[in-house]
């Protein structure tokens, strides 16, 4: 009997797609958080990192599905989306220092030479940070590939038992607050 390769294929497919989705968000977000200071940047940082401290069941099922924020049909598209959300903080954590390590004097030199921000990002920042970004993508892919929960969602195709949405909301809010404070402590500025 030939071996059944479909689980491997499924995992590769959804991990690859999830990583792609996550890096498409992480790259501009990392650049934005690293290069610009704007109102709400710490809040955004905290929100992106929320999956780090909330179990997938809590975030996905209770917050998104039961509050109706995301109509959840348990199939592999959903699994990819969930996996992307969970890969994002890791990717952001890894791309951010990579972008930060690019010496600003290169970018400023390019500005003085008449280059716009978009061209600077593609021609200067990205090529100079590619090692860090490549490492981030690999780590993100590995994270998505071994992720059990997304697979479980697809495989089990079942809803979790009932729980108090409000209690979960409270936990989520507390986690968010902790991340928010952590974010501005880490970046060395007061909450904005």
């Amino acid at each position, binding site marked *: 009997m030939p071996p059944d390769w479909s689980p491997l294929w499924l995992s590769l497919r959804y991990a690859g797609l999830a990583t792609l989705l996550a890096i498409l968000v992480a790259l501009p977000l990392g650049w934005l958080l690293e290069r610009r200071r704007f109102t709400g940047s710490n809040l955004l940082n905290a929100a992106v990192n929320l999956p780090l401290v909330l179990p997938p069941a809590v975030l996905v099922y209770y917050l998104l599905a039961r509050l109706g924020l995301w109509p959840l049909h348990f199939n592999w598209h959903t699994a990819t989306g969930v996996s992307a959300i969970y890969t994002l903080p890791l990717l952001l954590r890894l791309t951010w220092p990579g972008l930060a390590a690019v010496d600003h004097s290169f970018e*400023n*030199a390019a500005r003085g030479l*008449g280059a716009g921000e978009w061209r600077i990002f593609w021609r200067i920042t990205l090529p100079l940070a590619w090692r860090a970004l490549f490492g981030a993508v690999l780590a993100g892919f590995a994270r998505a590939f071994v992720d059990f929960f997304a697979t479980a969602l697809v495989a089990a195709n079942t809803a979790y038992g009932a729980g108090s949405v409000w209690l979960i909301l409270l936990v989520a809010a507390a986690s968010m607050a902790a991340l928010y404070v952590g974010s501005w402590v880490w970046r060395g500025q007061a909450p904005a």
Partner: protein
Amino acid sequence: MIQARLAAHGVDVEFQAGSGITALFGAAGAGKTLILDAIAGFVTPASGRVILDDKIVFDAASRVNLPPRSRHCAYVARHWALFPHMSVHDNLLFPLAGLPRLERHRRVKEMLERFTLQEAAPRRPHEVSPAERLRATVARALIGEPKLLLVDEPAAGLDIALRAEWYKILRLVRDETSLPMLLAARDPETCFELARNMLLLDGGRILQSGPPRKVFDQPVGVEAARLLGIRNLFPAEIVALDPGRNTSRLRLENFELTGPYLPGRLRGDRVWLCVEPGRLLAAPHDGAKPSMNQVAARLERASETPDAVRLEFAGGIVAEIARRDFEPQPKDNDNKEWLVEFPPNALRVLGCP
């Protein structure tokens, strides 16, 4: 031609500069780089106005703030900032985006020849010699035909041979073009080598401006003199003025000196006196009575410079004498008493502190 009035992060300056090199001279933290960054558009000043060739590139009052790419100010950063992932050729090509292909190649070829970079062209910046890196940096800054060249701390950290090469390159640019250049400098040598004018900066303010020779010869005050590294600064009181003999009598902390007549000063005025170390005369004390303007002083330290011997005496007096005039004392001779002579025409008086 650039006119700038800027206030940002503790810096508050107003100046204008025409073609040739204008040096911003000051210690670390005086605001040199911040001024360059504000003109380039990397930093937005709280108030002020920057006009470049009759075009307003920044005006806080009318909220004009052109992005750096529209200001046409090429910036040579402290560590050159040649893009490490591109060849020298591609570095030169970078500012020319948007030009027709033929024109791009014509300009790159011309610049490579002008700065003798033909051999370095296909290589990455880390594969070429430091001198070629310097030339490539300047070539890249000039290739887009900027209206202003901003140069941050050029000679900082360069060895002597490279420094000479660097001065040569900038002199070439200065003499061949009418481009205004602003150059942040931390040592007087750079100002003298290159600059037509200099702005003496301290704590974000301009203390003095003018040609380097004039600034160094006539510092406006004791702060300016200290920043310029002028040694032998002594507070003194005018105890006598004799217009007839064209002399003055100055009392220092421990001794009195005869100096030139000081027009516009009154008896009892407190002034700052300065003497170039090279113009003091010094000889070991042989026991004779000191004559006019000679002061007995104890030698604390003697150190050699490339072309002289620097003698540091008690009381903060520093003299530099030719090496042949300095006869090293025998080891067993503990006579450290010297006679230091202050020639009247070497004494200069700064404005009162």
